[in-house]
């Protein structure tokens, strides 16, 4: 099958700075692909090049197998949702959603039907006559989504669409966008810096750093097996332990602390408590541990308080303990 879109050796340079550096990436048809990374990693620039708002310095962009590198945005037929929503403030919700259809000379009756259909898909059928200013942020977000979907785009591009919403709404909208994607069968490219969002929503996640792809794969492939320290850190692995066999990482929730010699199979290290803090259901404990090479590494362990022995209120800084990274939780970083 022809991929929905492809980046072939795409570079975006601003002077000496490479925002995107020789990017090769395939966007599969009907899937939700997430470009994930910290700010400045090139994810938004890549999306803007795909949409046609930025021209690559080098390389090619294919849409539906055809070279689209030189096409202006209006000739690409893609639907884009901007971080700021970018609704037309002088038009009603219905006219916003119908804007692209009007340009495509869709007859009025069909246009109306498709506007209604798109608005109902996002659950805003009843607000068609309002002006954008009269809507909440979440509703504006949905209008922007409906406007992009109404033109039946080849791809739906979402640039940090949830970052302006409050935390609860953001979580709701993740499921909402997945539902819309499933109902429409659209190919979606989502840009985000939020790893939870990417893990929850993606079919494929693409981790980027400094204009380069660090790792690509399904969330359940990438999360348990980060390819390198950067990916591991970005996904919330906080403990890095150098050993003779290479660098290992373990998540804070899986690092165990025992006051006696540990017996769990895995990596057992001697350590000294540096901090111990109450965090509701958890206890957050800092440890200076001696790595197998003799080096002292700072580690963090998040312990569930209900799993501690009765009466245990925390550790005292200076207390000597042993920490264990159990074998199944240990991830070897190959790069």
């Amino acid at each position: 099958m022809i991929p929905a879109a492809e980046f072939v050796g795409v570079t975006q340079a601003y002077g000496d700075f490479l925002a995107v550096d020789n990017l090769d990436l395939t966007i599969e048809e009907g899937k939700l692909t997430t470009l994930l990374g910290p700010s400045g990693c090139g994810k938004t620039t890549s999306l803007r090049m795909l949409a046609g708002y930025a021209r690559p310095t080098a390389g090619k962009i294919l849409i539906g197998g055809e070279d689209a590198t030189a096409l202006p945005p209006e000739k690409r037929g893609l639907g884009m949702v901007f971080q700021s929503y970018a609704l037309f403030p002088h038009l009603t919700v219905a006219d916003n959603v119908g804007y692209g259809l009007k340009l495509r000379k869709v007859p009025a009756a069909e246009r109306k039907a498709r506007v209604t259909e798109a608005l109902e898909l996002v659950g805003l059928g009843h607000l068609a006559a309002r002006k954008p200013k009269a809507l909440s942020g979440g509703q504006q977000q949905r209008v922007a989504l409906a406007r992009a979907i109404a033109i039946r785009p080849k791809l739906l591009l979402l640039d940090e669409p949830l970052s302006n919403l409050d935390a609860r709404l953001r979580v709701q909208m993740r499921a909402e966008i997945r539902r819309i994607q499933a109902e429409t069968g659209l190919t979606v490219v989502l840009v985000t810096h939020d790893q939870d969002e990417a893990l929850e929503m993606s079919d494929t996640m693409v981790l980027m750093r400094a204009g380069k792809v660090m790792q690509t794969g399904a969330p359940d492939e990438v999360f348990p097996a980060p390819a390198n320290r950067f990916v591991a850190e970005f996904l919330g692995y906080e403990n890095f332990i150098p050993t003779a066999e290479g660098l290992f990482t373990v998540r804070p929730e899986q690092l165990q602390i025992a006051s006696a010699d540990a017996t769990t199979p895995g990596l057992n290290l001697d350590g000294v408590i540096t901090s111990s803090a109450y965090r509701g259901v958890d206890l957050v404990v800092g440890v200076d541990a001696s790595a197998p090479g003799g080096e002292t590494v700072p580690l963090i362990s998040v312990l569930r308080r209900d799993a501690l022995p009765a009466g245990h209120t925390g550790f005292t800084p200076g207390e000597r303990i042993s920490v264990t990274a159990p074998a199944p939780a240990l991830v070897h970083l190959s790069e």
Partner: protein
Amino acid sequence: MSMIKTNNARPVLGTLAVLGYIIMIVPILFVVSTAFSTGRTVSFPPKGFTLDWFGAALGNNTFMSSLGQSLQLALIATVIALAIGVPATIAMHRGKIPGKSLVQGLFLSPLVVPELVVGLALYQQIMVVLGQSNSIALLIGHTAILLPYAVRVTGASLALADPAIEEAARGLGASPLRAFFTVTLPLLRPGIFSAALLSFVTSFNNVPLSLLLQDRSFRTLPVTMLDYIQQNYDPTIAAMSTLLLAATVVVAIIAERTVGFAKIFGGINK
């Protein structure tokens, strides 16, 4: 009522506000009241009541012809200033122009260069060297002093507009021209309207430039009124001023009713 409350709450601010209004309004009341006076000179308090001076003002051919020329000049200069200034502003905000700040400075320079200097330069170059009529020189001069308003005011409303809005229109299938006319221009409309209003008033009221470039064939109303007042001191001049004031009030009411001041001047200080 609410104003009185505010004054009570902030006595110093309230007093200053009232003082400001007095300073602005009292001279106007003075002029308006003398326009109805039966006295032969502009004097206060006015004596009696008559509308004769209005007849005299409206019947004064010099006033009426220069009024027509002033309106014509203000209108054409405003249109030209907007036609140059609005696209230039958009180019400066959105485009990648080399030496952007230099170009911007150039457009705003008529604000800082004394108008007499501009007038003298135009007199030298357009009238003496190129041998053009004073109406051409006036038009060029007025357009030049209006450009800063066109650039500044539309620029302010453009700076507030999210550039992604135009990109969104492009993404939905609009050509750059189409996106400009269906999205950018409607967003700029209040800004352009306020720029036009300010430009028109600035041109219509201008004295220094018009004074330097006047001749018998084309002279503006403010210059004519200045000339008149040097020769005569009868209330005709007060009547003419009152008429102008009334016209301004009508324009202001129309502007308020159609677009709304908040929106017009929202273009400047939102």
